[in-house]
């Protein structure tokens, strides 16, 4: 049990001795540092950076949709400037629709927080509005019926 501890100590001593020996014999270059010519010519054996070649996998007319997505990704890495310009792409919902929806949305959510008295007032207004439009609707319906 104790022997292992002793062994580790002797090992440490041996290591220290070895390190001392190595540092004395450690070779170093006597020569002055060669002035590296700042070579601004970079040697290159591949054609890819020279000619800006495209990515090798291609798919056309939707034969392989994953590869078509990949094509757009890969080729856009080369032309990142164009993508920055096209950030304002078509939105799913147009601005006008958004404004319309938002208008009605404000109204419906606003009703939620009205007090009871205000709600009754709103109901009366709706009924008045409906009664006014009903005869006109009926008139319109009568107007639409004859289709000769």
């Amino acid at each position: 049990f104790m022997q292992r501890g002793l062994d580790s100590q002797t090992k440490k001593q041996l290591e220290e001795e070895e390190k001392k020996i190595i540092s004395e014999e450690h070779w170093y270059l006597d020569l002055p540092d060669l002035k590296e010519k700042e070579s601004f010519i970079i040697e290159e054996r591949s054609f890819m950076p020279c000619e800006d070649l495209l990515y090798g996998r291609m798919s056309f007319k939707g034969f392989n949709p994953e590869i078509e997505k990949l094509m757009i990704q890969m080729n856009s890495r080369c032309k990142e400037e164009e993508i920055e310009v096209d950030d304002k792409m078509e939105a799913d919902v147009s601005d006008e629709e958004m404004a319309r929806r938002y208008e009605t949305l404000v109204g419906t959510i606003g009703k939620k927080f009205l007090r009871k008295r205000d709600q009754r007032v709103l109901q009366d207004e709706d009924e008045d509005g409906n009664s006014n439009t009903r005869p006109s609707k009926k008139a319109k319906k009568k107007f639409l019926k004859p289709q000769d």
Partner: protein
Amino acid sequence: MAAGRGVAAEACVGQVVLPGDVLLLPTQPDEDGERLRLGASAAPRGRLLCGPGLRRCAAGLLVTKCGLLRHRQAGGGAAAGGAYWVDSQQKRYVPVKGDHVIGIVTAKAGDVFKLDVGGSEQASLSYLAFEGATKRNRPNVQVVGDIIYGQFLVANKDMEPEMVCIDSSGRSSGMGLIGQDGFLFKVSLGLIRKLLAPKCEIIQELSQLYPFELVLGMNGRIWVKAKTVQQTLIIVNILEACEYMTAEQRKQALAKLSGN
């Protein structure tokens, strides 16, 4: 010495150069002077890319392959510094680091696949170099001539080339086993570069014909897959023949096909 003086590099752009020609870069002495004055300026105004077919030598650039000298101007956001290279034609591929190639699996040696890439040696591909591969989850690659699209990790004249099917961020980005069916054939390296050029008319015209899938390897191999065997063979024939056809002949051929 028969080498004589060198010629200014800018004068030879677009002309035929032969191995042994020395191309001088006119701005060299000025660069040295400016460097002393400006000190540690980070602007790589003189940084030049010396592409395939050219080597650095004491005076300037030494041509090692015969072909046309091409030049790309400095500028552009991503690439800095102009580039000179020799546009040469050859059929035999020499593995280059970073190239995407199509390899055919020939053997499995332990944990490594041996791929035939068209070079002097077979490339090795570790089975862990696929996306999502672990020691237990092995890629489904069988030895009987499967086709793999990958890029070179190590490729020099002293070592056996090594390939991987993932990029530096660990994603496969389209590399890996190429699926069933399809047709693999070999063309010259110059045609591949022509087809991979940013605005290639051949590819644009072909894409109007029918839906198909195409994989181009820098080692001269092309894999095509279309819906029917006949369409696949038509595309193969066009790609093989378009190397020696002029633009008009090609348009005529395609017009006949789209008419039929």
